[in-house]
Structure formats: C-alpha cells, structure tokens
C-alpha cells in the first residue's frame, strides 16, 4: 500500500508537468499566488462562520444562514487551493514529504475537517433548537474556537514551509 503511494508520487514527480513547474521561472510563483488567494478565501470564510459559532459576529443571523451564505465560497476556494497545492506538491514531492511543516500542515487540515464533521454529525444534530441564539451551547463554541486555532496553525505551517525548504 505504502509502496503503491510511493510509486504514484514518484510517477507524478517525474511527469513533464512537474518538470515544467520546477523549471519554469514564472509557473511556480504563479501557481503559488493562486494558492495564496484560494487559501485566504478558505481561511477567511471559515473564520467568519467560526466567529458566529463563538458568538462574536453576525449574532443576529442563525448559524445555518451565516454558513449557507458563505460555504459555497469556502468550497470553491478549497477546490482551487487543493489543485494549486497539488501542483506545487508534485513539483518537489520528495522534498515536501520530508519537510515536517508540510506533513503537519496536511495533518492539521485533516483535523480541521474532522472537527467540522464531528460538529455537523454529532454536535449540531439539535441545531434548529439553538442556532438563532446569540450565545450557543458550549459544544458549538468549542468547535468554532478549535477551528480558528487549527486554521491559524495551517497558515503558520504554510509560511514555515517556505523558510525550511529551498525549492528555488
């Protein structure tokens, strides 16, 4: 299984596409800039929902209306971040995988996703009963606070990758 993953990564890293991103002076910063724009929209929009959960913003709107107005933007931006991030990754896959901040960033994104699933699947089962209140139950505030911390850590790791890896 691990061998398969290893071969798959090697296949992409040796592809002409990865070679182009590595060698072209313009392509890497261009994809990186798109990645930054997408990440900003992902993190910014999630932060607004988290602030609503914490009772610090948009308290006059219900949780589902705040989330409903924003999540389309979050998911579209996440798709762009994932694709641009994937392209940056295959250009130097071996080096990225050896970088602890890169691995930490992936794990933190996974943790943020898990936090979201736990919130939607378990904590928010009775959401219609409390979602209009300004002050939400502890489990909702906890999910919001944890999400903010995880995404701040994701951005920090992203920045630290740039200082601990010399790709260019």
């Amino acid at each position, binding site marked *: 299984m691990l061998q398969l993953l290893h071969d798959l990564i090697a296949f992409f890293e040796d592809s002409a596409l990865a070679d182009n991103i590595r060698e072209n002076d313009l392509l890497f910063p261009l994809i990186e800039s798109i990645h*930054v724009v997408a990440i900003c*929209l992902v993190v910014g929009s999630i*932060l607004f929902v988290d602030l609503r959960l914490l009772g610090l913003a*948009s308290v006059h709107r219900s949780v589902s209306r705040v989330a409903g*107005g924003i999540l389309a933007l979050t998911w579209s931006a996440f798709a762009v971040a994932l694709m641009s991030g994937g392209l940056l990754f295959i250009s130097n896959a071996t080096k990225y995988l050896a970088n602890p901040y890169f691995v930490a960033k992936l794990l933190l994104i996974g943790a943020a996703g898990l936090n979201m699933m736990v919130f939607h699947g378990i904590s928010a089962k009775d959401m219609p009963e409390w979602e209009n209140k300004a002050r939400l139950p502890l489990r909702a505030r906890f999910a919001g606070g944890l999400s903010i911390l995880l995404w701040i850590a994701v951005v920090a790791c992203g920045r630290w990758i740039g200082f601990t890896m010399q790709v260019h």
Partner: protein
Amino acid sequence: MFDVALKELCNWLAATSLSHTIQTVSWIIPTVQTIHILSVAVLFTSAVLVDLRVWRLLDRDVPASDIARRFLPPIWPILLVLLITGSLLIVGEPRRSLLNSTFYLKMALLAVALVLTAILQWSLSSAPKVPNKNARWLAEHFAATASILVWSGILFAGRWIAYTQAG
C-alpha cells in the same frame, strides 16, 4: 538622487536595533508574515463577500446594505494590523521591499482598492439618498468587479515580492 536617498534609508533601517532583532531571531519574520496573511485573508474575504453580494451571487435574501454594514467597516482596523506587520517586515529586510518595484505596485494597487472599498461602503449604505438609480447600479457593479481584481492583484504582488527582490 532619489535612488541614493532610498538606499541610505534602507541602510539606516537595517542598522537599527529593531531591525537587528528581527533579522537575528529566526521565528519573528515567519510569525509576523503569518499574522499578515491571516489579516489579508479576513480583509480579502470581506471584500469578496460584499462584491459577490453586489452581483447577487450570495445571500440574496439580505439587502446588500446589510452585507456591506457587516463586512466593510472591519476592513479599516484590520488594515491597521496589516500596516504594522508590513512595517515590521520592511524594517527587518528593508532592501527586500523598498528597493523592489513589485512592492510599489502593491502599494499603488492598495490605494486603488481602498478607494473602491470606500466608494462601495458609501454607496451601499447611503442607498436611498442617491437619486440616479442607473448610475448607482453601474458604479456599484464596476466597483465590486474592480475590487475583486485589484485585491487579487495585491495578493499576487505580495507573493511576487519574494521573487523580484534585489540581490
């Protein structure tokens, strides 16, 4: 003449004790950059949400003026955080930005973006007072579209500073 003065400013900044601290303590620059990017994320998302609402792409059940009132005013205090963290980054590595044309492009785009934000904030919140409906529609849609493009340009320029720095 201007070039020489700018280089002297860089040398002077780089020789200050604050700059020395920023240069030698390795976690300061990435930390300040992280705060800078997180602030950019909030500011950029706020602007984009208002721009998308102007184009009726989200939150159609709420008047655009409400969205503008929720998301545009916080832009100004966040801008202050960006100016402080940005200044610290300049003091730490003055030549990286002050001798870099991409940095000046970013600042010029920022000035345009702020004017567009002020126009949107004014127009959306003073809606009933403006007499000419068509002119207002045109101004708001133009400002919203330009706002997304100019803010994206600022983010691109920000990333590009790292690739165009002098020596």
